[in-house]
Structures are given as structure tokens and as C-alpha cells.
């Protein structure tokens, strides 16, 4: 039975995450907000600490041993992340950024600026996170072009009827691998194939997908992929853009400064080689070291074990919520469990999500309430906000059970 497996995985792993021990000692603590940000295992904290105690110096520009060591640590993290997502040229195809959002801004400004003309079209989906919407809107204000949108249906699945016609006029397709609200896993391999048939490049938002599923950029067929560290056990302050090296070569520099140049004269500059051409200033070095350790941790657990665990727990949660709350709860997103990741947005009848989250907090249950940085999606759903529970490798049935009990209490409180 899947759910038994689940419990074992989390029980074993939870002790690696100090926050559970520390907070649970003082109060109930059910962390169901990993889609916003995950917690960190000891090994990641230790790696960062060790970095600062033994190896810290600025990277790339130092001849002395310590600087070389720091550079080695930083570049090793880059190659590791590249391998983790199946990059062909891990040393050159990963650009470290501060988060996934910067990565998507980098694509919009670096690639969009080269590719798009006022008469161009790009195609996004109505379920994109603001991070894959607003950078394009900012560029649109600067250079003009049109944005088309792929809608989604009542099940939270993309409606692909007009796909060919929309791709036909698009230069870029921007799509999330997994919706942070609906949990929907989009059929990106197919979308990439179609996009390429029509000559469009594919910019994928991997912020939610990469932490939870084995990722292979080749198999996905995408051209760019944005990732963020803090949702996959790594520190805050670091994200990355992967893009095929030809794409990175074609892209314009975005942030200017040290490190990203090969030469600077009073009348202009020559950019550095990829990936350095996109990394201006001192990079997040300790954070890269921490991410490297997080990747080790994920690999040791195994990405397949993680996605199975997520799925089993999501399944359990859906059935518990429906059993115990029946028509008092509405769960958004695909009903087909194979089409969704471990993210559950829901509505409790006549209780605003904000109030849901507030009452749940009293029970030690942490869920997110709000528009989840996806306002166009919320408008499409016809709500101002949802409450969202999300799962990761350290969650288990006890978290779900606490969620259900707390929801029943919230319901009672607002219906007395």
C-alpha cells in the first residue's frame, strides 16, 4: 500500500531536518508549505557553515589557494546542478541567479530582446506564476510585441485546441512544468516538440517541478529552464537558469558589472564567455555550496522515491479531505492523480482562505493562503484566493490528518 511506504520515508528523513526537532519540541508543527519554500537538512547547513569556516574567498579572480578552493566549490556546484537536470554541457549551461524569478527575467531580457520585434508574438499560459508573466510584460512595455495565452479547463488542464495556430505565430512559448496552484503537470515534452515544429523556443518554469521529479532537459525538449534553490532543500538567495549553450551564446548580457566582461573600455565592453557573461558581481558562493549538498541529499533519497512519496501522500490527502469534509471542501486541479504534483489548492465553504490559514496555524498546521503569485489564474478560477497545502519528502499522513482535523475546526468556527 502506497501510503505505508510514504510514512516510512518521511519518518526516516525527518530527523535530518533540524527544524522539525526544534519546533516540535515546543509546539505542534505540521509544515505543509514546501511549495513556497522547503526546509533544509543538516547536511546543507553544515556544508555552508564549513564553507565559511574553511574556504571562503571571492571566486574567479584570486590566484591564492583559498580563492582557488572557493572557485572550485562554486564551479563544482554548477556542474552538479547541470548533471542533475541532464544538461549536455554542465560546466557552461548553468547560470546562477538569485532565484527562479531572476532567471526568467534574464531570459526575457537576454533572449526576448534579441528575438522579438514589435510585430512578434509570444505564447504564455493562464496558469503561469507572476515570475513567468511580469518579466515579459516589462519587456513588452520596452520593445512592444503581443502576448497570447493558452487557457486551462475546469480540471486545470491546458486547453490545446488552438495550440498550432498560436504556436504558428509565436517566437517563444513560456510554460510552467507544474502549476504552483493547481498542481497540474503540463505535457511539456509534447509542447516542446510542437513549438519546435513551428520554430518557437520553449522557456520552462521548473521552480515547482524540479524539486519533486527526475528532470531531463533533453527529454523535456525545452530550450531554457528556470530553477530555484530554496524549494529544493537549498539555501535562500540562489536560483539558476539552464539553457542550451547555443541559446546562451545568442543571448545578450543582462546585468552588467564585474565578472561578466572580458574587456571594458570607456566607450564600451566585451562580454565574457558563457556562463560567466550572465553572472555580474560576486555570486552566491556559500549558497551554491549549499545547493550542491542539497542535490547530494536528493540523489541519495532518489528523485523517483520522492515523486512516488508525493503522489501517495497527495492521494491520501485528497481521499481524506473528500471523505471527512465532503461537499464542504472544493479541491482545485486535475482529478487524475497522475496529472498532478504534490500541491493541493482548495476552498472551504464560506471560510475565506486567509481565515482558514489563520485557524490552521492555531493547530500548528502551516498552509499558504492567497493568490500564490498567480492572479490571472485566480481570476480564471473565479476566486480571490485559495488555501494551499503542499507536500515534500518529510511529510507524512500525520500532517494530512492534522490538516483535516484543523479544517473541520475552521469550518465549525465559521458555521456556529
Amino acid at each position: 500500500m502506497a501510503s505505508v511506504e510514504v510514512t516510512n520515508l518521511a519518518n526516516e528523513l525527518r530527523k535530518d531536518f533540524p527544524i522539525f526537532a526544534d519546533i516540535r519540541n515546543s509546539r505542534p508543527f505540521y509544515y505543509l508549505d514546501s511549495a513556497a519554500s522547503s526546509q533544509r537538512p543538516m547536511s546543507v547547513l553544515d556544508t555552508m557553515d564549513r564553507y565559511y569556516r574553511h574556504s571562503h574567498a571571492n571566486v574567479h579572480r584570486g590566484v591564492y589557494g583559498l580563492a582557488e578552493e572557493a572557485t572550485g566549490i562554486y564551479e563544482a556546484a554548477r556542474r552538479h546542478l547541470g548533471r542533475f537536470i541532464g544538461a549536455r554541457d554542465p560546466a557552461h549551461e548553468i547560470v546562477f541567479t538569485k532565484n527562479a524569478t531572476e532567471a526568467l527575467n534574464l531570459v526575457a531580457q537576454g533572449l526576448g530582446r534579441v528575438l522579438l520585434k514589435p510585430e512578434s508574438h509570444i505564447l504564455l499560459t493562464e496558469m503561469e506564476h507572476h515570475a513567468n508573466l511580469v518579466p515579459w510584460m516589462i519587456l513588452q512595455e520596452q520593445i512592444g510585441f503581443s502576448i497570447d495565452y493558452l487557457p486551462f479547463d475546469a480540471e486545470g488542464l491546458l486547453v490545446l485546441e488552438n495550440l498550432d495556430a498560436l504556436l504558428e505565430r509565436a517566437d517563444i512559448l513560456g510554460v510552467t512544468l507544474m502549476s504552483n496552484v493547481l498542481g497540474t503537470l503540463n505535457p511539456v515534452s509534447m509542447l516542446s516538440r510542437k513549438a519546435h515544429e513551428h520554430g518557437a523556443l520553449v522557456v520552462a518554469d521548473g521552480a515547482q517541478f524540479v524539486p519533486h521529479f527526475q528532470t531531463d532537459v533533453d527529454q523535456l525538449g525545452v530550450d531554457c529552464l528556470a530553477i530555484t534553490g530554496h524549494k529544493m532543500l537549498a539555501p535562500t538567495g540562489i536560483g539558476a537558469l539552464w539553457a542550451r549553450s547555443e541559446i546562451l551564446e545568442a543571448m545578450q548580457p543582462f546585468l552588467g558589472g564585474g565578472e561578466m566582461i572580458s574587456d571594458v573600455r570607456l566607450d564600451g565592453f566585451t562580454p565574457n564567455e558563457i556562463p560567466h557573461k550572465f553572472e555580474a558581481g560576486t555570486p552566491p558562493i556559500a549558497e551554491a555550496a549549499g545547493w550542491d549538498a542539497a542535490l547530494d541529499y536528493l540523489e541519495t533519497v532518489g528523485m523517483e522515491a520522492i515523486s512516488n512519496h508525493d503522489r501517495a501522500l497527495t492521494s491520501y490527502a485528497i481521499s481524506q479531505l473528500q471523505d471527512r469534509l465532503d461537499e464542504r471542501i472544493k479541491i482545485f486541479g486535475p482529478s487524475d492523480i497522475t496529472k498532478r504534483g504534490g500541491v493541493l489548492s482548495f476552498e472551504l465553504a464560506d471560510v475565506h482562505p486567509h481565515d482558514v490559514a489563520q485557524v490552521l496555524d492555531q493547530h500548528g498546521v502551516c498552509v499558504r493562503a492567497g493568490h500564490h503569485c498567480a492572479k490571472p489564474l485566480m481570476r480564471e478560477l473565479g476566486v480571490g484566493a485559495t488555501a494551499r497545502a503542499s507536500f515534500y519528502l518529510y511529510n507524512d499522513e500525520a500532517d494530512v490528518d492534522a490538516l483535516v482535523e484543523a479544517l473541520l475546526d475552521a469550518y465549525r468556527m465559521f458555521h456556529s
Partner: protein
Amino acid sequence: MNDLDDLYREIILDHYKNPRNQGILEGPAVHAEEGFNPLCGDEVKIYVKIEGDIVTDIKITGQGCSISRSSASLMSQAIKGCSIEEVKALVSRFKRMIAVEEVQGEPEPVDLREFGELAALQGVVKFPVRIKCATLPWNTLMLALDGAQAG
């Protein structure tokens, strides 16, 4: 009374479930403004009708949590018939009551009796994130009054 009960007093739940002064206003003396809480997606639209310097009517639309909706509802009751000056004074006293300024140190003591039913909102003080919910309609009201005074 625990903090949560203090937040969700009966009067709050009542105004949430049965918000007063819902709807829209039209006409030349009407000024309307929209407000967003970027944190949670709450939206409110406030219509005020101003005759002379008196707020003779107020209506509200939008979506929001129990705090922002009850705050709007209580506000609408409190200000109808007041002069613009009186409303502005109330807005600033109200903000003081719920400790709106940077949460440094204890909120200044205020005499809760002067607030009538509005005092029920005082429970948000212990929930800093919810303070923005409570103030959203008040800030939006101020914008509408500014609009009215500007022309």
C-alpha cells in the same frame, strides 16, 4: 479568551457573514476607489456619496477575508453621516488602535470605548499579517475621500 477567539469575535463573524452596505452607488456626488491587498488577493471597492462635506452614503463591493470584510462593514456603519474631517480623524484613531505603524514596541494605549463596535477589530493587533486586512478598506476610503476633495 485565547488570541484566536479574540480575533474572531462574534461581532466580526456577524459582519463577515452579513456585511452591511453592500452594493454600488452611482451619480455625480459619488466617488469610488479600488484597493488591493497584494499579500492575499483581497480586493475592495468603496463608493462614497458626498454632499457638502458630509458622507451621506457608502457602499462596498469586493472579496476578502473575515477581517477585511467585517472591517469594511463596521467602517461603513461608523462613518455614514459624518463629515469628512470627522472621518479622517476616525481613520487615524482606528489605525492607532490596531497599531498600524511599524510593529516596534507596544501599541499606544487608546480608549476602546470611543470606538463602539469597531473596537471588536482590536484583536488583530496580535496578528500582524492581518492588520493589512483590517486597514485595506480604510486606506481605500481615504483614497476615495482624497478623490472627492481633489474635485
